[in-house]
Structure formats: structure tokens, C-alpha cells
């Protein structure tokens, strides 16, 4: 059951990810990206990280992608015109893609020990309580630094917006 669900959502994620690049219209790409985020959330859920899954949907699929689509709607961006592929792309595209995939497969093979497979639902630290506890004890410093970073980003956004107004 877990394996079937994993295969279904992994395939959806990969197909949507390819679709993001293939589509010419920004809205279609954005919708495909939502598909990627959603299937990733399901994969997290299968592993037992329910809080991360919910956060993935709320933050990425919900908030970030809504803003993306909002901006695309606001700018009323049209479909991009396809130019002919350059000589370099035609010549090197497929070999480079194969090389990248080979490299990835090589590292996965080397880095992960043999014979140990992923156990679905094996991760027990995924509840909201344990994530919260980890954030406020073990990872307190990174957490606070990240908050500061976001605060700086907000201030920067305000400064930039004010400059536009004046």
C-alpha cells in the first residue's frame, strides 16, 4: 500500500516537475509547480513527518504559490515565444542530461549504504510536539537566526517599496 502510494505520487511529482519546464505559459508552469509541492507533501506524510507535510502544503503550495500566481495574474504575463534551439543546446543537451543523471545515480549509490531500505512511517520525530521541542531546544540558535533573517527581508521589502513611492 505504502509502496503503491509512493510510486503514484513520485510519478506525479516527476511528471509535474518536467511539465514546469516544458509549459510555455507561466500559469501552466505555476500550476504544475503546485502539483510538485503537493506530491512532495504526500511523500513526507508517507515517511511519517506529518507536521512537515502540513507545513509544506500551507507554506509552499498554499502561500508561496498563491503569491506566484497572484503576481502572474497582476502582470498579465503572456505565453513565452519559443525561439529555435541554439546549436550548443542541440549538440550538448542530451549528453549533458545523461551525464547529470549518471552522476546523481553514482552519488546515491555511494552515499547511501546498501541493503538499508526506506521504511515508510519509520520516522517518529514528525509530530508537531517533537518538531516544536526540537526547534526550541536543539535548534534554537538556527531558528532565531532564521527569524532575524526574515525580519531583515521584511524591512528590506518595505525600504524598496518606499523608494518606489517617492
Amino acid at each position, binding site marked *: 500500500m505504502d509502496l503503491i502510494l509512493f510510486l503514484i505520487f513520485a510519478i506525479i511529482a516527476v511528471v509535474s516537475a518536467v511539465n514546469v519546464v516544458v509549459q510555455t505559459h507561466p500559469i501552466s508552469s505555476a500550476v504544475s509547480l503546485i502539483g510538485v509541492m503537493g506530491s512532495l507533501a504526500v511523500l513526507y506524510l508517507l515517511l511519517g513527518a506529518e507536521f512537515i507535510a502540513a507545513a509544506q502544503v500551507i507554506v509552499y503550495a*498554499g502561500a508561496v504559490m498563491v503569491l506566484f500566481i497572484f503576481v502572474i495574474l497582476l502582470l498579465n504575463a503572456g505565453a513565452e515565444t519559443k525561439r529555435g534551439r541554439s546549436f550548443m543546446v542541440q549538440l550538448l543537451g542530451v549528453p549533458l542530461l545523461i551525464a547529470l543523471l549518471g552522476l546523481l545515480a553514482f552519488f546515491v549509490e555511494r552515499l547511501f549504504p546498501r541493503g538499508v531500505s526506506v521504511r515508510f512511517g519509520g520516522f517518529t520525530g514528525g509530530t*508537531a510536539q517533537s518538531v516544536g521541542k526540537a526547534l526550541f531546544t536543539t535548534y534554537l540558535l538556527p531558528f532565531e537566526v532564521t527569524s532575524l533573517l526574515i525580519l531583515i527581508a521584511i524591512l528590506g521589502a518595505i525600504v524598496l517599496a518606499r523608494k518606489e513611492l517617492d
Partner: protein
Amino acid sequence: MDAFVVISLIKAAVIAFVLLTAVAYLQWVERKVIAHIQLRMGPYRVGPHGLLQPLADVIKLITKEDMMPSYVNKPIYLLAPFLAVSMSLLSIAVIPFGPTISVAGYQTGMQLADLNIGVLYILAVSSMGVYGVALAGWASNNKYALLGGLRSSAQMISYEIPMALAIASPLLISNTLSLKELVATQSGSVLDWNVLHRPFPQIIAFLIFLIAGFAETNRVPFDLPEAENELVAGFHTEYSSMKFASFFMAEYLNMVTVSSLATLLFLGGWEAPWPAAKGSNLIPSVIFLVAGLTALYHAAHPARQMDKYTLAAFGIVFLALAGVFVLPIVQSWLLPLFWFCAKAGAILFAFMWVRGTLPRFRYDQLMSFAWKFLFPVAMLNLLVTSFLVAWF
């Protein structure tokens, strides 16, 4: 495993059937309530007191010609209503309508799935509901639809923040994310409901949640995405037949979700206002008894010749219900269901009441209200709540 699957399928079928019927009749109730607010009669022709009007509406919507303009973006135009209605149906799956009961020897909760992140799940699904509206507006390739879609996505993003902050404060008091345990922490009397719970009554959070809920469901006074006098019908201008009906259903389903969530988070879910030992289990019977007697009295009244049979029939149905509620066998599951429906129904009535009384906001008022008033107040409320919870 097998019993679980069978029970879940039965529960899903029952909940889907009851919910869709309720949504159809909610629309009838809304038309009646607004009609009476405006001193009209409302639907009256189809069936007694217009009771078959929802059926007539459904038949009309199904048989209408399904037009698709030639200039729309076809895949996304078709995806949008499906997305809207499926997201609003999904969020119902985690709402508990009552406690765990035993049916024919099996223990089962009166909800489809008891997630330990139920509240987050509803937030996640409702944040996905924006896409239905935004994409419908864009894919219609129509300026009114696009403006409606833009307005609605901006509005939903803005009001999601005070809503999430308002949800967070009762969660601090209850210390759980599971909707079922949330109700368990509020059991007892009305003083244990989160809206009045120590150490800090969440009445402000409750009001903020309701206001944000009105905005999230695009209801009056926040119905700018479909403001008729500016935008024709907003994001669903180009939709007809069942696709239009999907948006309509999604709106009413979202109303049901918001009122159920408000009931669970703030009003103690299916718990009675005071313990059954002090007679709260007799309240439903008394209410139905009074309703039945009133209906019978009006049926016998000579001035109401037209309603001689319909009101009598209603009176008898209400009296029968009053009798059912005192039966000890059904009390274990019927009483929680009654209290849940009564609380959620009261909030749904408030939705209609507001629609009948308040005018629409202007767009800039809507935005400044969310960012300059609701957001700081919700933040402050959360801060005070967390300090008091940490203190006591």
C-alpha cells in the same frame, strides 16, 4: 482491517449524502431568512413552503446548457471548479460531529479521519481552495473574471493571517492539534469552552475568526470578488450549468467548514452547555416540544387556512423528534449531534443574518481592516494568551 474499510466507506457515503443535502437546503434556508429580513415570503411555490425548491434548483442547474466560451484556457478553465469543490469537500473529512460510539459491536468515531494534525490539515486544504477562484478568474479570459479572481486571491491571502493567529490562541489553551482532543479539553460546562476558558477567554479570537471566516468564504460584507454592480458576477462570470453550481456548492461547503471549525475550536464542539446530570439532556426535547406545539397552534388558527395541513405535519414531526430525544438508546449519539448542529447552525444563521443586514466593504477598506486592525489585534491576543498560559 476489513471492518475498518467497510465502516469508513459507509461513513463517507453517509457524510457525503447528508452534507450535500444540507448544502442544498442551506440555500433554501438562506433565501427564506433573507426574504423574512426584507419582509418578503421567499420561495413558496415548489412544495409546501418552497421545501422542494432545492430539488428544482438542482434539476435546473443540471439540465442547463453547459456553455464554454471559445476564448478560455481549456484545461485550467475545467480544472478550477473541480479544484474549488474538491478542496471544500476534503476539509469536511476531519471534522468530528460527535464522540466515539459503538455500532453493532464496533467502536467508531463520528468523523471520517482523526488526524493528530487536524487543525493544520484544515488550514492546508483551505489555503489550496484559493486556486479554484484565482485560476477560474484567469482562465475565463474575461476582464471582470480576472479582476474578481485577483481580488479574491488578495483577500484570501490577507485574511488567512489573522485567521491562523486567531486559531493559534485556543490551541495554546487546549494544547493539542487534534480536533477530537480539542473538544475533550473543553468538556464540562459552558465555562470550559475555549471562548470563556481560563486563563484568558478567547472571545476576541472567536470574533476575529468569524470575521476572517466571512472573508475567506467570500461572503457579505466581504463579497468583493463577485460584487455584481462592479464585476458582473466576478470570477464565475463565464461559468454556467454544473460548473457554476460547483462554485456555489464550494461556497456553501466552506461556510459549513468554517462554522464547524468555529464550533470545535471555541464553542466546545458537541459538548452540552452544562452537565447532563443537571438536565441539559432534556433541552432538545423541550425545544422540539415547544416548536411542535407552536406549529400545531398555528395550524389550528383560522387565519392560516393555507397552512392547515403543512404546519400540522411539521408539528407532528417536531413532537415525534421530541419523543425520540428522550429515548435512552439513541441519546448517546443523538445528543452530541444535536449540540454540534445547534452550534454550527447558529453560526450559519449569523452568516445569513449578516448578509441580510450589512453593506459591502470598499476594497481599500477591506485591506486596511485586515492589515491595520485584525492583524495587530490577533497578534496581541496571541501574545497575551501565550503569556497567561505560560504563567498559570
